[in-house]
């Protein structure tokens, strides 16, 4: 089937089999290998990307379901000038990654949530962190990173308000 994946504002015209999962299309057809596959059964969440703003397990979605729908992956997380997203800074600052394999999934999960609700509360953050698997960090640094990013995000927005 001919489809066009719209990923991080770039258009990727593809000819894919209906059975092709989104994660494989992103990784192999679009060359966006930042999205990782950890279990291919929707449990670990390493492959989480944003489809139309919603966090989805890209191993459980077919590429053809995403024809023309805006998709965001970890490669599109930084700002237009390459300025790191608050989450990227916070993950480094809080040591929210070790091997880094699961990290893109946590980043996109949190990015989607922050965009919906910049004032993420403690419980929301806990629910987010509890959605994905990490075998290195023990999660607490990831929780701190998302909390810090939410704070910085809000400060950034407040800052923009003030300067406006």
């Amino acid at each position, binding site marked *: 089937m001919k489809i066009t994946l719209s990923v991080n504002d770039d258009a990727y015209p593809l000819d894919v089999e209906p059975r092709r999962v989104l994660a494989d299309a992103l990784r192999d057809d679009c060359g966006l290998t930042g999205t990782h596959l*950890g279990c291919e059964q929707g449990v670990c969440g390493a492959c989480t990307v944003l489809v139309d703003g919603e966090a989805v397990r890209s191993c459980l979605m077919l590429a053809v379901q995403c024809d023309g729908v805006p998709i965001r992956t970890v490669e599109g997380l930084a700002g237009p000038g390459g300025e790191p997203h608050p989450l990227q800074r916070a993950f*480094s600052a809080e040591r929210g990654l070790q091997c*880094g394999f*699961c990290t893109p999934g946590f980043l996109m999960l949190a990015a989607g949530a922050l965009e919906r609700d910049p004032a993420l509360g403690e419980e929301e953050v806990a629910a987010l962190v509890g959605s994905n698997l990490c*075998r*290195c960090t023990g999660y607490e640094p990831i929780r701190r990173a998302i909390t810090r990013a939410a704070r910085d995000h809000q400060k950034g927005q407040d800052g923009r308000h003030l300067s406006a």
Partner: protein
Amino acid sequence: MVDRWLRREDERLLTGRGRFVADLRVPGCLDAVFVRSEVAHGTLREADCSAAREVPGVAGAWSAADLPDLPPMPDAPGVEGREWPALVKDRVRYPGEALAVVLGDDRYRAEDGAARVRVRVDPLPAVVTAEEAAGDEVRLFEGRSNVALRGEAGRPIGDEVWERAAVVVESRYRQQLLMPSPMECRTILCVPEGERLTVWSGHQAPHRLRHDLAGLLDRPEESIRVVVPDTGGAFGSKSAVFPEFIAVAWLAVRLGRPVRWVEDRRESLLVATRGRGQDQQVRLAADADGRLLAYELTVEADVGAYPHLGVAFPMQTAWMATGPYTTPEVHATVRSVLTNTMITYPYRGAGRPEATSPLERTMDVLAKRLDLDPADLRRRNLIPPDRFPYRTPTGRTYDSGDHPAALDLALRTLGYHGWRAEQARRRADPAALPVGIGLSCYVERSGGERGSVHDYVGVEAGEDGTVVARCGAASSGQSHATVFPALVAETLGVEPARVRLIEGDTDELPGGVGSFGSRSAQIDGAGLQHAATLLIEEARERAARMWDLPIEETAWSDGVVHPVRGTAAMGLSELVKRTGPLRIDERYEADMAFPFGAHAAVVEVDPDLGTVRVLQIVAVDDCGRALDPAVVRGQQFGSIVQGLGQALYEGVPFGDDGVPLLGYGLLDYLLPTYAEIPPIDLEETRTPTPRTPLGAKGAGESGCIGTPPAIVNAVADALRLDHPERLQMPLSPDVVWRAAA
């Protein structure tokens, strides 16, 4: 913007620019898929690949019969004669064992082909426990016993010791099989180019992999380059050559095409190496004052289907059986028995959790029998700081330690007396859920065994003023690229930004051992510090010659050599320009070291539901000098959570047919999630190893060793179990509910 990323690894890993093996784009690369046995034990009647070869996009499909020259796994020393073929020839010995391999233009084509391979295996009875297998009623190898190894540490203990003891506690424990479960499963990509073969693999020991592959493919080591790119965790499970690796490398060479295998989680749960796997029996004797008199540990290890390194690994448990106590007599015996499951192999802790857990659980039982506080019982028996180096009855010589300090800090941090008071309060209140407090004192071994406690290290100064550090380690998340340059920079007195690290590429290094057994900081770190020191000496010698001064008249500070008197000074860049390349290459060797610590846990148990809520964990770990304290804390924390997994959640149950009941993957094998993380307080004491000038000991495995028995002891304490044999890990609600009944 230097400060934006705390680690050098962070930028690429946070922006999607990490490069794991599955991410590498190689034109014309074929994907490998293995057809796997659905039975645990059986006779292979048929593996017919002809239909698979007709599938569009399939480049080839082979069973063992189609590849008569395919080499088997290398023999493990001392256990020869039981061949482990890369593809099953006639007998399946573990579920998931590979019956055929299919190569396709991509994973989809290869899976299509695999679905068309016709296989027939006639099942045989399967044995999955050491006890069943040791009877040899079902033999994995005709004419050979399933018992693959017997060993012991320490001397047998005389009957009179047990007879004259005031108390003897006997108990049995199970150290269940665990899946190491790095988030990235195993990977290999083999790219043949002319006479050379480049192998990319998420791996802990690239030089070992090169050596093994060279032997298997019967070609010189120099013709193979092994590169370890970003690696998504390992925890011990990625340091060997595996049957699938052999098939992939062999076919890549034979076809002259790149071939890649990226293990998926489903096959990983069947055929990745597993850790632990011991049935244990203990006897612990003490006098009326609680002084330990003797300890006996009997290990029956279920080591999986083929003799391998895992067969000898239970000896780690035997050698470490003494633990942190002054017990005068200790005897440990080991029997490793082949079973119809994938092999056991080192998993984070590797032999030391299995030593710590039975001893620490039995200490709590002993305390109860003697009506002593478990902390007091331990304090009476811990090796005092002035007794180091301490030679144990099981043959280890501990380098250094202050066990009482670690225990006291753990108790203080926990608020031990406060929790005891809370426990008493709840015991008096029939409506309150019981709480329990569990302790665990441990000693581990890091660095490796004699004969492998060395590595290649090197430091080179460039004309441009930069410094390159090289070592034989390989990172799978431990921050080597950040930590090692910082250490070299500190030694040389230069800015860390000037130093970069090269590791994990056999073409770039004269040799190497790898990263396992918590050895990288201890051995490679100490080695890099040593190499940097040698570089300073060499620089001073050259400067002395240049300035026609005795070497004592030169000095080194802040990356610059200068005369003791006078103002002349020369940086490394200038020195290299004037005197030529300046490079130190060393084989650095040190002895093993013994990190230690004390962990404590508080749990609340609902006896009606069997649920355990961990209220607090305190971990005091001593790894000597911490090269980067924040990195060490990251290791401690992650390791504790894996220990929590062993205590409460993780395990491999088997059906009667010997097949693991893990059909729903990670919905059946329960890795801890954030919802399970209790408050965890990390503390440390610092007792450097005297065995290197650096003083670092291994730091990554402490949580897997110290935490599980602390949690299980806490549950036993909450339930006031006199004899907690019924509490076997993982403490699922079912297990706890039965124990409480």
